[in-house]
């Protein structure tokens, strides 16, 4: 299958390993990945911070660039959530009916990675090998905006060598929330402290999720406290094999 990669600006700039892993995984499964180079950002930060008008050109760009593809994938529940639940709203608010219907059409063809694998490609065992104790944080937008449900866990359970430990109070937000982490830094930190407490209680050496943003947040806290627990994107684990491990040692 020919699949267009919506890399997301955050993964492109700060977390490229999630995107390269997505490419390697899909190619290993026999699919063709294309990367439309003029893509930038879906505009979620603008929309969620109160600047929907500034987001209009970004929505227009995103729709123009991804409209030609039948299937679009992003290694981010949050960015797919914005495409699926906010782009048409922004277009409608701007009074652009043509853009609204095109945005709805692109949204219907855009998938978060675990949705693509399980629902579109029909695969739950991707042939990965990752010999680590792992706990999975179901990010809020994957959980409640996209309803990815058990798909990521199903994929993780099929990974050879992987010891999956349930994260206590996993449905609670890590406290990131985009600009919330800066505007309400202290409440955000209090939420992060509880998330880290639960991660540490599992005894896992790796915390995974399907959003680079939440992983940057949780990982930033785990690193600041020198816990030795690392954050690894779900795509990295699924791309990992004996010959090409995502984490060495």
């Amino acid at each position, binding site marked *: 299958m020919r699949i267009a990669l919506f*890399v997301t*600006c955050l*993964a*492109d*700039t*700060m*977390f*490229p390993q999630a*995107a*390269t892993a997505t*490419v390697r995984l899909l190619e290993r499964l026999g699919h063709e990945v294309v*990367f439309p*180079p003029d*893509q*930038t950002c879906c*505009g979620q*930060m*603008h*929309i*969620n*911070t*109160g*600047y*929907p008008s*500034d*987001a209009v*050109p*970004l929505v227009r*760009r995103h729709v123009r660039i991804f409209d030609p593809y039948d299937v679009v994938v992003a290694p981010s529940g949050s960015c797919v959530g914005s495409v699926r639940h906010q782009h048409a709203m922004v277009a409608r608010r701007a009074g652009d009916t043509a853009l609204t219907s095109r945005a709805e059409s692109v949204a219907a063809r855009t998938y978060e990675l675990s949705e693509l694998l399980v629902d579109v490609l029909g695969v739950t065992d991707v042939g990965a090998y990752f010999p680590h104790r792992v706990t999975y944080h179901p990010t*809020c*937008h994957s*959980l*409640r*905006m996209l309803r990815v449900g058990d798909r990521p866990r199903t994929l993780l359970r099929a990974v050879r060598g992987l010891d999956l430990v349930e994260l206590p109070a996993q*449905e*609670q*937000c890590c*406290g990131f*929330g*985009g600009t*919330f*982490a*800066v*505007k*309400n*830094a*202290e*409440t*955000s*930190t*209090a*939420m*992060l402290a*509880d998330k880290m407490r639960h991660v540490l209680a599992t005894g896992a050496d790796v915390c995974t999720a399907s959003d680079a943003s939440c992983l*940057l947040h949780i*990982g*930033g*806290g785990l*690193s*600041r406290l020198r816990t030795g627990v690392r954050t690894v994107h779900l795509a990295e684990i699924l791309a990992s094999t004996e010959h090409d491990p995502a984490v060495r040692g």
Partner: protein
Amino acid sequence: MTGPTFLGMPATAPPGVGHLRGDESFPAAARRSLADPQLRRNLRHATTTIRAKSAAVIAESPDWERLRAAGAAIKADTLNRLPELLEQLEARVTEAGGVVHWAADAVQANRIVTDLVRAAGADRVIKVKSMATQEIGLNEALDAAGITPVETDLAELIVQLGDDRPSHILVPAIHRNRAEIREIFLREMPGVDPALTADPAALAAAARRYLRETFLSTPVAVSGANFAVAETGTLAVVESEGNGRMCLTLPRTLITVMGVEKVVPTWRDLELFLQLLPRASTGERMNPYTSMWTGVTPGDGPQAFHLVLLDNGRSAVLADEVGRQTLRCIRCSACLNVCPVYERAGGHAYGSVYPGPIGAVLSPQLTGIDDNASLPYASTLCGACYDACPVKINIPEVLVHLRAEAVDARRRPTAESIAMAAAAYTMDHPRLYEAAQRASRLSRLAGRRGRGLPPPLNGWTGSRDLPEPPARTFRQWWAER
């Protein structure tokens, strides 16, 4: 401030009266509560307990999602024809011997109630727990008129005696533990036994003794309403102590203050809401005390009944296509109990009698965005509130809508608005975007790798590291492979 709505009602609740506005922004108020270990513990314990209880009784309801959808639909229909339903309610209440008063705002409502109490010749009233009367600051208005209001809901009594403010819609004293309650009772409760212990049964017995005497000797009661049936003119109050029932049946005069959105079209609609409300709020299958009355019944219960219909900014909320769904709220507080922000910051951080996610959308709409501009940002948009809401209010959608309103309300550009415009321009020009990626990497390499970034980014680096900048961006990797 904008002009009156097309219905002629004021666009916002007036300032200087009631409790919809805090003294400081959410982040500033939250800073204090976050640093209080006792409060954090009380909140964690209470919200975790209610969450588990509510989840269990919702799980045993096979048609919960259909009940929610029906609740949302009935409320949406009600709001679409609110003026007509309110006039129907007025007609039925009047036919049944009640008197209906229309209050455009808090000032009018307080004056109407004060005049009615005076006309009844009373200098004290007993009160049923009510959010509407907290919203308008009725107790302060009565005090100023020389009338003593006595809260009879146990938690509201604790808050009142402690000269405190409620911090939860359903559990107003959620921020207090039993040792603190004992101290408040010993200090403030008339005739209290000085040997009172902090045992919950002893505390409840002390309140009971004090309140029973008050019930028997007070001729006027003031209540709110959970529902008002337009078809029959019936008012309904749900509570779990029975103290509300005392207030609604013992006095000679009953005055009910109700937000205009509390009306439901038909008697049968109660069948639905009395299933939704207890499961979502207290985690009970059935509400313990459900009191319903229609006007005045000769020889039985209060012989004078007044209904005060309160607008106080609601018509303006109704006029907003996105914000309107906020008025579906049945004050169950499920959104507070599941909110990770509320659980840590507590109710007082919201500055209004309506805390938590529903408060973050309701308060700024009632007061106008200028007076509560930080509240729509007091959320990570995690969506737990939307999932928990028994009438399916899409709180994250309204929060995002109000953030845009907050930005639009600023008169001049801010550092944030300039940065946002610059970021949008950059993101719309791929060459600039790539240049910005390179620049950020170089500055990070040259600098301190994310430690001690300048404001506002120090909000991040105060408690979190930023990772080492990657050697290559994804697009560089793609171009080079």
